[in-house]
């Protein structure tokens, strides 16, 4: 039949051959699963391919500079202080936005989850605002706040507010009611109950919110710095584009990636530490 042409070629089945193939595959699989180098394999191959492409001229430097060129650019910009200064500016913008928007989201999420009055007062509005894409606000933010720090922090704050609001709200609302009841009959007051039962119970969800927020934080930072900035990593990338310095452009991309990876690793570590009571997080 014609359809068979797309299937694997049929062979006469030798049961022993099948068995030994399966066994080999299992060993290979478990070696992959065991080795601590496994996660680095794909990045290493990509890097090797990139280097090979550059060395053979298949990848012209005007399209993608060689890894070494990117490293050199990074080293030079570090030595003349450009990179550290701009990195510090970008990081402090990101963290300021996170501190403002994240704290607000966390506190409002918890408050609306606990208080029916606040929930009815605020939640519908917050849910409505949530459907506005943050970057749609950009023209308005620039109009109001100009292109200085306030505008960028506002954009980042707006972006991180919602994941923290939603997840802390959800976390507090889904705390096991039977545990709250236990706390009450065992004489815990409102504050003790909140500290010992509600907050730890909501923590897994809050940490999920923080992870989402961190992702959006870098995204908003990139957008803010690319559109309107006179300093920061995004500004460096823009300048490099004007002077066609592909090595610096690639460098900034790598830096954005590394920053994202760094914060993600940090939250994972925090999860493992804070949620070590939870068998789903404890041993990994």
């Amino acid at each position, binding site marked *: 039949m014609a359809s068979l042409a797309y299937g694997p070629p049929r062979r006469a089945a030798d049961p022993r051959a099948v068995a030994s193939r399966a066994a080999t595959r299992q060993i290979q699989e478990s070696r992959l699963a065991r080795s601590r180098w496994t996660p680095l394999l794909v990045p290493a191959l990509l890097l090797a391919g990139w280097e090979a492409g550059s060395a053979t001229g298949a990848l012209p430097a005007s399209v993608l500079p060689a890894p070494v060129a990117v490293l050199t650019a990074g080293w030079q910009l570090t030595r003349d202080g450009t990179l550290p200064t701009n990195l510090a500016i970008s990081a402090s913008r990101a963290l300021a936005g996170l501190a403002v928007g994240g704290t607000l989201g966390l506190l409002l999420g918890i408050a609306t989850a606990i208080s029916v009055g606040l929930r009815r007062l605020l939640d519908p509005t917050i849910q409505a605002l949530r459907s506005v894409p943050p970057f749609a606000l950009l023209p308005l933010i620039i109009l109001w706040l100009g292109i200085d720090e306030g505008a960028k922090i506002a954009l980042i704050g707006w972006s991180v507010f919602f994941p923290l609001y939603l997840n802390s709200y959800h976390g507090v609302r889904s705390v096991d009611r039977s*545990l709250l009841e236990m706390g009450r009959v065992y004489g815990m007051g409102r504050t003790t109950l909140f500290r010992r039962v509600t907050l730890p119970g909501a923590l897994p969800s809050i940490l999920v919110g923080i992870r989402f927020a961190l992702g959006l934080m870098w995204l908003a930072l990139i957008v803010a710095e690319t559109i309107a900035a006179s300093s920061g990593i995004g500004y460096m990338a823009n300048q490099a584009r004007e002077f066609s310095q592909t090595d610096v452009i690639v460098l900034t991309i790598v830096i954005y990636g590394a920053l994202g990876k760094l914060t993600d690793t940090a939250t994972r570590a925090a999860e493992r530490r804070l949620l070590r009571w*939870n068998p789903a997080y404890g041993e990994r």
Partner: protein
Amino acid sequence: MAQTASRPLVEQASGGTPIVVSGLVVAFDGPPVIDNLDLVVDPGAFVSIVGRSGCGKSTLLRTIIGLEAPQRGTITVDRDRARIVFQEPRLLPWFDVLTNVVLGAGDLPDARERAAETLALVGLSAKAHEWPTRLSGGQRQRVALARALVSQPRLLLFDEPLGALDALTRIEMQRLIENVWSRQQFTALFVTHDVGEAVMLSDRVVMMDRGRIVSDTDIPAPRPRRHGDAQLATIEGRILDLLLAGGS
């Protein structure tokens, strides 16, 4: 509370406090779940409540401890010295075993020492710094018992605390409960669906049906009691017959 240094903190008998329930009516939305119920439990007595599923046993305990509000009637009980053990252990998974027991001590002084002693009492000292999720069902329920005992309650309410345990663990837990009860002399109100268990442990077995008390049997047998005792078996049979005859 004055304490002599030589005596352990949790060994002293605290004595029991009475319960007086009169004309109690509890309803959710619909017909009353507790229907004009009267019950008097003497200080230090061990009283079991048996009855068909849905007859209102849990609701009665929850109303006594203050988790449900009565429609009518009165409950006289010292809630500050009362504790409840639920069918599920309800341990806080984010605190280790010892801290969970400490939470039961409220703001008593020496809470950690008391908790450690109580944990020893239920035979779980070795697990003090383990996460609750790493314990077996029976061990978790023993931690819940320790958390209830650590404050030296004068009244302990049990809502089918052994319902989820295997037969052997049940018997061990029954012995443990009887043991602490006879040492600390609190009042015990024990809900179970196992008539044998009720007869084995109690001074008195009360049967509920549709929110009322329909029979009240004294168990005069001396302690310690043995499983398979003939006198106990006769009483158990009588109560079982009543239970089977009562429901529709």
